[in-house]
């Protein structure tokens, strides 16, 4: 009798998760419906107008989709050399040493810093640097946001990749050494190929994070509603336009913002699913 009650309770609490998830999707869909109906789904995706003149409202998601994709892509590119170095440092070259442990702890610490702190640091430290280097006059923009995003995802990617590097069996490495391979050759020809799919999947998960990162990007991207024409120009990401405008928006504009949220949700969910699937496959092999 008790056992049955316990099961029912467990089931009920577990049910909350799919219910919440379904509720979010439902709310997004119903609230975004007005925008999709007014502009048409494809038109909404491909239009780059964003004007809220009363009577002639025009909203399109393209500037923000491109802002998000640009910052994410750049952030991943900036992050690759650093995160790989840290991962191989802690996972292979200095594995088990005190310095690797310290570095690993600091990396985890960095991963836990709230994004508003990164945003503040970016605004008051990174932005002036970019201005003094004459890269862009206003300091903020796609580049600034991407650099900050890269700094935010480096700890995340490197600790995940490091785990995959550590998972390469010792037998396999010794087998390669026994054939006369050097350390560099073992890293390049054994560890990297074997851990490769795992390392790759940690980047996919990092993309998922970078896509949705809001606070830092909002503080640094410059907040202009145009398609960025170069990496130094300003723009807005999907997350940052919502953060910037939802407070003052209503009716069609609010619905358009929610539609952007829905698109972001879908892109992020798909990327995360791919990443998780790849991690699963990497673990099995």
């Amino acid at each position, binding site marked *: 009798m008790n056992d049955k009650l316990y099961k029912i309770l467990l089931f009920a609490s577990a049910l909350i998760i799919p219910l919440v998830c379904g509720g979010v999707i439902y709310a997004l869909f119903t609230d975004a419906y007005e925008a999709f109906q007014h502009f048409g789904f494809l038109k909404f995706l491909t239009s780059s107008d964003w004007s809220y003149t009363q009577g002639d409202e025009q909203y399109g998601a393209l500037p923000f989709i491109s802002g998000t994709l640009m910052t994410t892509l750049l952030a991943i590119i900036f992050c690759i050399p650093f995160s790989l170095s840290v991962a191989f440092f802690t996972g292979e070259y200095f594995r088990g040493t005190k310095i690797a442990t310290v570095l690993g702890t600091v990396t985890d610490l960095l991963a836990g810093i709230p994004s508003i702190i990164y945003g503040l640091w970016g605004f008051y430290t990174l932005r002036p640097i970019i201005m003094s280097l004459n890269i862009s006059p206003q300091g903020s923009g796609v580049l600034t946001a991407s650099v900050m995003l890269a700094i935010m995802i480096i700890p995340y990617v490197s600790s995940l990749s490091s785990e995959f590097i550590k998972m390469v*069996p010792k*037998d*396999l490495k*010794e*087998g*390669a*050494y*026994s*054939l*006369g*391979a*050097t350390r560099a*050759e*073992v890293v390049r*020809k*054994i560890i990297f*190929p*074997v851990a*490769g799919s795992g390392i790759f999947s940690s980047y996919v998960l990092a993309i998922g994070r970078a896509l949705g990162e809001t606070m830092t990007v909002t503080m640094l991207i410059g907040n202009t509603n145009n398609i960025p024409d170069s990496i130094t120009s300003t723009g807005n990401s999907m997350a940052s336009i919502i953060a910037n405008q939802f407070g003052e928006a209503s009716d069609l504009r609010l619905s358009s913002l929610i539609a952007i949220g829905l698109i972001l949700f879908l892109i992020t969910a798909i990327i995360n699913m791919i990443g998780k699937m790849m991690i699963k496959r990497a673990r099995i*092999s």
Partner: protein
Amino acid sequence: MESIIPILEFKKTCVSYTKQTMAVKYVSAAIERNTITAIMGPSGCGKSTLLRAANLMHNLYPNITVTGEILLNGENILSMEPIEVRRKIGMVFQRPTPFPTMSIYDNVLSGFTLNGIRLPKEEKDITVERCLKSVSLWDEVKDVLNKKGTFLSGGQQQRLCIARALAMKPNVLLMDEPTSALDPVATKHIEELLLELQKEVTILIVTHNMGQAMRISSRSMFMYLGELAEYGDTATMFSSPSDERTKSYLTGKMG
């Protein structure tokens, strides 16, 4: 010259993992060319540790120190480059370790690719065929050379690993309980193979299995608590061991 200098000789070889304890204590033994020499002893007696010293595997771990001398054709390997030593002294491990990202073909050639040596296609083909034939795996895999090595059975994988080591034409082949993860049929297959292979390469094999030592080796070492208790002809050792410890181990009084 060749007949006078032993192919591999341990001279007062010691291995320690920590400053206080020695895992291998002053082992001196000369290994005869083109023989199979078995290293026996209970768990934790230092047999694998001694074997791994012979191709400088311990160099990978900074906490392990090896002292004394280990001579390969009269030359002390402890002062040689590990890479050079490991190309001359091959090793096969307890568990088969084919490289999972490489095909069977590439696994055989991995010694070359890992060392950055490029062979012409023709020579590659010849090497792969020669090595797989010498481990009698050729007939079983010749049609699936491009498949991953990890699809093979355990015994086949282990033979692939032996082929991989042979491709480098080593002087000595070290084997660390190569059949302990295999079933009896695969074990028998490998044993027959080793008897055949000793014509081209000197084999030093660590084994837990006394029957195996008796079946394949002509010389045997018995190690106990890091010391070399006895070293001699296998037949003599099994029929009339001279050391008390060997005797009680072989008769099952000590495990």
